[in-house]
């Protein structure tokens, strides 16, 4: 299945946003613009709600306003045929033009690459940031029926699209292991730079102290925090 690459999962969700506006006679804003504004209000890096969602490698929200116009198509055999026929009738020239499609509503797009299976991920997401979820999805069609984690899982699965081309930008290890690995790598570089040239015994002592400090087997701490941007 294209959503899965090893232990990594690519989730793509398109949730239709209600058409129409909220507000009173003095101030009107469309539901989609309100969702957009809420997305802009989210924190970034460590302060992003996504940093609190367990096992998230990379995730993003955006609003899909409409499909993009594909402009004039390249010529194929039919186009050439229409070109020739258009000499006789204007109608044929118009037939060769692409049909212009539009979406019936605007969509909230949520895409996430994470470790593990979909249900566990969504459970973790709900238990970590359910208030944010309700805030972000509030104006999506039928989200008012979501009352609990089971409802959220069902809702997301209904809105899910299959990923066709999944490129996972990291390994497929659990997030804690990746963050610990990143932390260890940085700490080890610092150690190597600051301890070069020591004698074997001295170096070994220093290395033991280093291992005691960075605790490679302890995933929880010390480590690189999810979303952390500065050492």
């Amino acid at each position, binding site marked *: 299945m294209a959503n899965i690459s090893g232990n990594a999962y690519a989730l793509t969700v398109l949730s239709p946003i209600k058409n129409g506006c909220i507000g009173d006679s003095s101030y009107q804003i469309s539901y989609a613009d309100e969702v957009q504004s809420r997305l802009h209000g989210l924190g970034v890096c460590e302060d992003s709600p996504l940093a609190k969602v367990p096992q998230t490698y990379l995730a993003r929200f955006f609003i899909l306003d409409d499909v993009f116009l594909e402009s004039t198509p390249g010529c194929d055999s039919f186009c050439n045929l229409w070109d020739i026929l258009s000499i006789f009738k204007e109608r044929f020239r118009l037939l060769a033009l692409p049909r212009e499609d539009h979406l019936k509503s605007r969509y909230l797009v949520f895409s996430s690459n994470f470790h593990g299976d979909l249900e566990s991920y969504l459970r973790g997401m709900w238990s970590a940031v359910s208030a944010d979820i309700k805030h972000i999805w509030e104006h999506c069609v039928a989200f008012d029926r979501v009352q609990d984690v089971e409802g959220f899982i069902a809702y997301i699965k209904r809105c899910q699209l299959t990923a066709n081309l999944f490129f996972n930008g990291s390994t497929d290890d659990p997030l804690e292991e990746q963050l610990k690995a990143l932390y260890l790598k940085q700490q080890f*570089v610092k150690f*190597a*730079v*600051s301890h*070069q*040239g020591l004698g074997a015994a001295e170096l070994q002592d220093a290395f033991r102290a280093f291992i005691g400090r960075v605790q490679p087997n302890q995933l929880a701490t010390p480590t690189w925090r999810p979303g952390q941007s500065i*050492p």
Partner: protein
Amino acid sequence: MTQQLDLPDIQGNIIRAYGRFGFPKARFFFLKINDGDSGRDFVGTITKRVTTSVSWGPPPKGVIPKPKAPINIAFTYNGLKALGLPRASLAGFPEEFAMGMKARKEILGDDGPSAPERWDKVWQKHEDVHVALAINGQTPEEKEQPPLKYVEEAYQWVMSQIDASGGGVVLLTGHRGDEGQDDLPFQDASLLYDKSGNIMAKEHFGYTDGIGDPVFEGQITEEYRVVGRGKLTREGGWARLETGEFLLGHPDEAHEYPPAPPPTLLSRNGTFMVYRKLHQNVASFERLLDAHAESFSGDRELLAAKLSGRWRDNGAPIAHTPDAASKAEWDKLFYAAIAAKDERTVDKMLADFRFDLMGYKCPIGAHIRRINPRGSLEFGQDGAYNTPGALDDRRRILRRGLPYGVVRDPVSDDGNHGVIFMALNTSIERQFEFVQQQWINYANDSKEGSDKDVLLGNHSDPNGACPSKMVTHADPKSGRPPYFVNKIPRLVETRGGDYFFIPSMTALRMIAGGKVDPT
């Protein structure tokens, strides 16, 4: 058929570097145009004295006598505007050129001691800098004559033209000088001299400079100079780079014309110049070598060579001379070739090399490997690109700079000494700025994390939270560990500069005549 360039249409110092042909002196100065009409008249007068790329020397090779002091001219975006270029032509210039160098400081890493507010005064009102004039000069053969005689004569001639403009064109002051001045009307530059007064092709850190300039289609140069200076072919040979990487109006490495403003006549045979005054912290550099020489291996010069990729004394590429023994062997052959006046061999020894994949000989972070990776970015994945150097070929720049000042106090960074760095390319953004941002101040492409070029990088406080480091790799078979050069201070600081357009002679005449018509 090989490219035949219209040499009388191309300004001098583009096709070949004056520095290599007996012009050890230079003076740069900058003008403001207060009035379009007198500005255009001034340009017209100067144009008649501008030195082109026509070959000089005795016939049949030379067409004109070798000039004593070639004059060249270039313009900022604001300068072209002041000269009355039509809006449609101005709008066709690339964005980075229109913005100017100061506004590109985040991309260039001009922060801290390199920040624009610390630049020479002349750059503080950069919107006033309209015209760059460069006078390069021979030195008189008679020893009793002042070395700057020819430069001074040409300079005085230009000054008289400025005077004649009646205030329409003014000279801008504000260059720092040797005696602590901050308001000099010009920036002098000069090749350095050794203790016996002989010219050396060196910069203030002691490295031999200007060996690896690109060679491109249409350049008149010995064919053997293509080796190590052109582009790598899949077969392992070298070919000339496309003209359009360095001259507008000619096809480039992507087989298209580089973006240029209309009309074609305005841009064709012109190019863009990056002018940067770079102060060198020579004392800090020597202290860095001192701090590491002992723990590195005891060989201070080998360490200096690892940082740059070439040995300081004669430019020997460390890719061929990774230790003292191989260097001694190389030196023997090199000096024999010099004694025999065998220029071809001398050139081959300096230029014909590639980098070892793992950096055991030439570190991956060495200066010359960063700025021109010579195909090493393919990183052992043969056939990843069309040619091994496909990524490098679009990032090459012609360097036309000269050192300035002298180091008076070797234990202090202060003073007035460095390099007037001048780079020529058809896309400042794609070529110079990319190299500066990605290859000098960052190392993702070479898989060296966020390490910076030791010599040119905008290093942060060496005692701060994230001091710079560089890895000198060691072959695991040798049993030695790699060596980390850490706590690297900032060795080069920007003192000013801007982006200029060097028009062709045709374009100069059009600008002077107010005849630029983009329609």
